[in-house]
């Protein structure tokens, strides 16, 4: 019982951060499913959403700032696709990935320029950043809300993909790019829709993430972005439920590893700190490599065959 009580806070905060990763991971998995592109800039779009909120909330009331941030983020995602990826549609995959890295570099440097390289404090959003107490542990409301909100959004997305025309087109394109083009599907529209959905979820994710961890710096998006991508690979790229489950696993693992020294000491397993927290980020990549080596298609991914 005591062991549970010391571990619980880490798990709750891990579930929360996992939910935030999940919202980013969906953007990765959908884009990869359709374009076979690791959109390295996605994490930075998430960071830019955070910065926009900082600047907009300074001059606008929150009920205007929040929708505006989401709208602008979506517009950014759409623009990036049109400007940086669309012209390279026929180029080798490596070129598109380099373009994505270039966009990421550009967004980070723009953020560096605008913020002057200083940490920006994220505005406190009333109600969701209030302090609450659950199971005798103090935390903020956003920690508790995130997983539920994530699941609701994902359920809505799955409905959209399974039951609407654009959803059907997305599924078709991700199955076979060329054939669906021949079948009269307007590829560019489908791709734009994918980017719009992905960035919308990233914008929501950024509001939750930065409310929880209220500091935005130009590199804020890099690590969460990479972890979300790993989550997408872990769950099986192209699979939305897979990405969500992967994200929760990574979030919980990361949080527990940060507290692992303490958990082990409190439960008498070790006598002194051994610095396992150093591996909280690296562990994500260990998971990635294990899954890539033993089950490259991820937990829920479909087997794909390579054609000559």
């Amino acid at each position, binding site marked *: 019982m005591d062991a549970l009580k*010391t571990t619980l806070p880490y798990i709750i905060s891990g579930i929360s951060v996992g939910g935030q990763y999940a919202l980013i991971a969906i953007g990765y998995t959908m884009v990869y499913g359709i374009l076979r592109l690791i959109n390295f800039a996605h994490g930075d779009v998430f960071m830019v959403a955070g910065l926009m909120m900082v600047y907009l909330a300074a001059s606008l009331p929150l009920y205007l700032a929040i929708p505006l941030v989401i709208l602008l983020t979506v517009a950014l995602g759409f623009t990036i696709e049109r400007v940086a990826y669309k012209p390279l549609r026929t180029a080798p995959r490596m070129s598109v990935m380099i373009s994505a890295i270039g966009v990421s570099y550009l967004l980070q440097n723009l953020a560096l320029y605008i913020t002057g390289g*200083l*940490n920006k404090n994220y505005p406190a959003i009333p109600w969701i950043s209030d302090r609450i107490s659950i199971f005798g542990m103090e935390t903020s409301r956003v920690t508790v809300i995130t997983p539920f909100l994530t699941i609701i959004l994902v359920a809505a997305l799955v409905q959209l993909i399974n039951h609407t025309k654009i959803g059907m087109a997305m599924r078709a394109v991700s199955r076979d790019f060329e054939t669906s083009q021949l079948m009269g599907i307007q590829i560019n529209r489908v791709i734009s829709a994918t980017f719009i959905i992905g960035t919308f979820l990233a914008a929501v994710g950024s509001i939750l993430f930065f409310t929880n961890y209220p500091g935005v710096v130009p590199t804020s998006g890099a690590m969460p972005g990479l972890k979300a991508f790993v989550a997408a690979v872990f769950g099986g790229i192209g699979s939305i439920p897979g990405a969500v489950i992967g994200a929760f696993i990574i979030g919980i693992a990361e949080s527990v590893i*940060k507290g692992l*020294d303490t958990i082990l000491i409190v439960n008498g397993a070790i006598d002194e700190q051994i610095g396992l927290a*150093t591996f909280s980020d690296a562990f994500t990549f260990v998971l990635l490599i294990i899954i890539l080596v033993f089950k490259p298609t991820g937990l829920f991914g479909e087997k794909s065959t390579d054609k000559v």
Partner: protein
Amino acid sequence: MKKVLSLVLVLAMIVALGASAYADNPVVKIGVFEPQSGDNGAGGKQEVLGMQYANVLTPTVEIDGTTYDVELVYADNASSNDKAPTAAQTLISSGVSLVLGSYGSGVSIAASDTFDAAGVPAIGVTCTNPQVTAGCDVYFRICFLDPFQGTVLANFAKNELGATKAYCLAKQGDDYSGGLCNYFIDAFGKDACVYEQFPEGTSDYSTYITNAQNQGCDVFFSPVSTEAAAQIIAKADTQALGMPILAGDTWDSNVILQAAKGTNVKICVTTFYQEGADPDFDMGIKYWMNNNPTALANNGGNDELAAVTVMGYDAYYVALEALKAAGSVDPADVLEVLPSVTYEGVTGAIAFDDIGDALRDSAFVKECNTELGVWDFVAVATVD
């Protein structure tokens, strides 16, 4: 009356600066090696403010009978050890006579070799790690050192706060927080400390707070950058930390005051300067800041003084003393006389020992008044 007089004086000097810029004096360059971006960007900017203010007050210096205009040359080390050597080199190439800085010990250690190779002397302003000056002939500093500060803080935690178990949090690879934690642990007792380091780019400090609570600590020692500090304070409030937070000189900043205002967290720091020790100086610099929007923005939007600003101010005058004593703008001549330079600054008397460290034996302890958002003076601490 005295205050009004000093105000008038400051004003006159500001006007005089505008005029003197047109005078045809030769120029002596002083390098400002400070972070303007990155983790320590905000702190670096505050330290530069002191130098800029001093430069406004005293824009010229007489060297060997000639009046020189003093020009501050800036290089941003971006709080990053790998950018520090190149930033140092840009200063050296631009022909500075000596260099001031930096805020944050790691960048100073990283650049010390570059200064050494070029023979350009550097005066550390608030870099407290012993490694900055040890083994480097050209590095001097005007602040106290981590072994001193760590011991002061450990004694304070034990004797005044009655702590028996301390949680120490440092940033990975950061020589300031890492060094200070190390000497704190030495003084507090290794077995009574829990020591953890967070990696760069950490956004989640809540787990570290949970760790401290779970391990039953009764003081939270985290002498980290002000950026991280603001978030730690916010989390400590939401998670009801339940123990005082203790930190070193970097936390003596209005960033901390803003973060702590209205929260339920007890914060104590050691520092170089207590606001009010020199009312004329306080008045003058506040007047200058309030009439200079850039300076005010660099100070974080209000005119609350950070100790590092005052140290920056003193450092500038130490640099002028050195130039006067050298009687030349050649870095080699400045380096030769620097060990014997003394100066009576706002933060106290400044003189160097054999290694190049300042002879300082006292620190101020302050506590954050979370209702008003100001610092309350607690004690002057020394080590026997």
